[in-house]
């Protein structure tokens, strides 16, 4: 690896191409929903937690969420990174040297390395974590970006070409110290090109689609009695496609329209991540990370929280089916998912113990 003139540069990342929508996201902004502030945070929380664990960070640390097409970034100093989630290809370049880097592992990048991403064959979003974290301001207890109101993350918006993101001032020292731990525990660290070193193992998130049609579980929505029997039947038995105008606020579903038997207005009331609401046109919308905190549309279903990460990895045009479960089952799924993830993160944390 080339020597890094660490003292000459502050740890930072410059954005050479923006990607479709790259934002700073973390574990979410809680405690302000009564003022209309939605938690936001990573769409696929499981991949965020894993990306952070792969570089030795706390689970909820801020990382870059990249959607569909990633950015091109350059790291000013030596940095320990990991990409988890959608299987984007990582292409690293430093001077004349070019290398393809693996996902779902910790990678030590030399100062000055540029990385670009090839579109993912699987999944919609990936999370780039750096050891020590990104140094963007805290807004209402979180670093995540909420684009509709323009706050959080980097200047309240998606990254643009020319942006410079500061990393934690200790990011470079942290990268070296943590990689030393990895080297001690993992004989035979692998060099990729002249700019990257990594390990021989990887830890994958469980949120990538593994079938043509993704099956997602739901519990009954509170306005089910307002729908026709055919609508309830259609929702459970049809295949829906993710519409191209889906975004971080909601996934619009293309498929059978869901008609109401009773069209009385419902009072505006709180919504939740995973609420499936049906506007008067009958086309259902699944509320995602940046959803409105309250709404007046009828709720036909609520997606089990354990299945949100897999839903968040679906791209426009991909197919999904909905199958019912009980509240007790949804709770059991959520707790099992937490335990499985805790197992992975504990194993990874061990890699960084002295």
């Amino acid at each position: 690896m080339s020597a890094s003139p660490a003292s000459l540069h502050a740890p930072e990342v410059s954005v050479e191409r923006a990607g479709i929508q790259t934002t700073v996201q973390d574990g979410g902004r809680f405690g302000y929903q009564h003022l209309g502030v939605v938690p936001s945070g990573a769409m696929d929380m499981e991949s965020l937690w894993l990306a952070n664990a792969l570089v030795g960070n706390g689970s909820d640390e801020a990382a870059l969420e990249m959607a569909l097409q990633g950015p091109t970034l350059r790291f000013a100093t030596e940095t320990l990174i990991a990409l988890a989630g959608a299987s984007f290809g990582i292409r690293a370049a430093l001077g004349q040297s070019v290398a393809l880097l693996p996902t779902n592992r910790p990678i030590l990048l030399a100062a000055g390395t540029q990385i670009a991403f090839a579109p993912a064959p699987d999944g919609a979003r990936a999370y780039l974590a750096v050891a020590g974290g990104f140094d963007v301001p805290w807004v209402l207890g979180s670093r995540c970006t909420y684009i509709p109101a323009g706050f959080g993350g980097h200047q309240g918006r998606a990254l643009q070409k020319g942006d410079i993101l500061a990393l934690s001032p200790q990011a470079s020292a942290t990268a070296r110290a943590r990689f030393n731990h990895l080297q001690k525990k993992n004989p035979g660290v692998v060099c990729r090109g002249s700019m990257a070193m990594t390990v021989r193992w990887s830890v994958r998130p469980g949120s990538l689609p593994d079938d043509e049609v993704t099956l997602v579980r739901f519990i009954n929505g509170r306005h089910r009695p307002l729908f026709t029997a055919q609508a309830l039947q259609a929702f459970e038995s049809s295949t829906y496609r993710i519409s191209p105008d889906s975004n971080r606020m909601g996934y619009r579903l293309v498929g059978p329209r869901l008609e109401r038997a009773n069209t009385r207005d419902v009072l505006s009331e709180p919504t939740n991540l995973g609420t499936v609401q049906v506007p008067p046109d009958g086309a259902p919308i699944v509320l995602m990370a940046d959803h409105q905190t309250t709404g007046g549309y009828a709720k036909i279903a609520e997606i089990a929280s354990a299945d949100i990460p897999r839903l968040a990895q679906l791209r426009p045009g991909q197919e999904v089916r909905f199958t019912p479960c009980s509240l007790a089952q949804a709770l059991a799924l959520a707790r099992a998912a937490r335990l499985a993830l805790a197992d992975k993160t504990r194993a990874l944390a061990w890699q960084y113990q002295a």
Partner: protein
Amino acid sequence: MGSKPAIRVQSVIPLGDTAVLVDFSDHLDPDVNAGIQRLADAIRRRNLPWIRDVVPAIASLAIHIRCDLTDAADTLEMVHSLVDACLGDKPPRARPLRPPLVVPVCYDSEFGLDLHDIGERTGLHPEEVVRRHLGSDFRVLMVGFVPGHPYLGGLDPTLAVPRRSAPRLRMPTGTVAIANAQCVVYPYEIPGGWSVVGRTPLRLFDAARARPSLFEPADTVRFERIERPQFDQIAQREGTA
């Protein structure tokens, strides 16, 4: 809760496995709404680790929970007993009463796009529509949808008009609008189907302020008429121009 009318749980419904909705009424009742807001404060005062957010709404309340921090098999039962216990909590001594929020609004025809239309529907002169809007004693029923977006109750009943059949795609920031018995103020440019009476130059939400949201649940609100030069002056100061 002393002489305040008590509220009673009507139903407890899961909003998925990470939130529980508690219903108190199927229609807007100002006393029930105020009771829900006091209940939300009482729940929040307990600082329970498994609760992430308490959201009082018009006739219901949602509690967002971390199901990994409780081993309860039945979160509905857990929330129901918490709500029952909190309904019995004594309110804190001398809860500071916030003074009425006075919100400047410019009703010029450039901003009050639907004053004539409301006048036609209600049989009132547009100037009388403004007078009755100014004369209404509003109360914040709920803040929701987007940050700082208030739903105000207390509109003069003679101004109750239904929502417009064709919503506007963009309501400019600060737009003051009415529908049925309520009034809203749009903190951001979002679509809306309510009838527009004017615009405020105030910034409704600013994450950097000590009180990020100008409107908070239970605030009392009065609108105050300003003319265009004053509007521009305040907009300049607030950075909303």
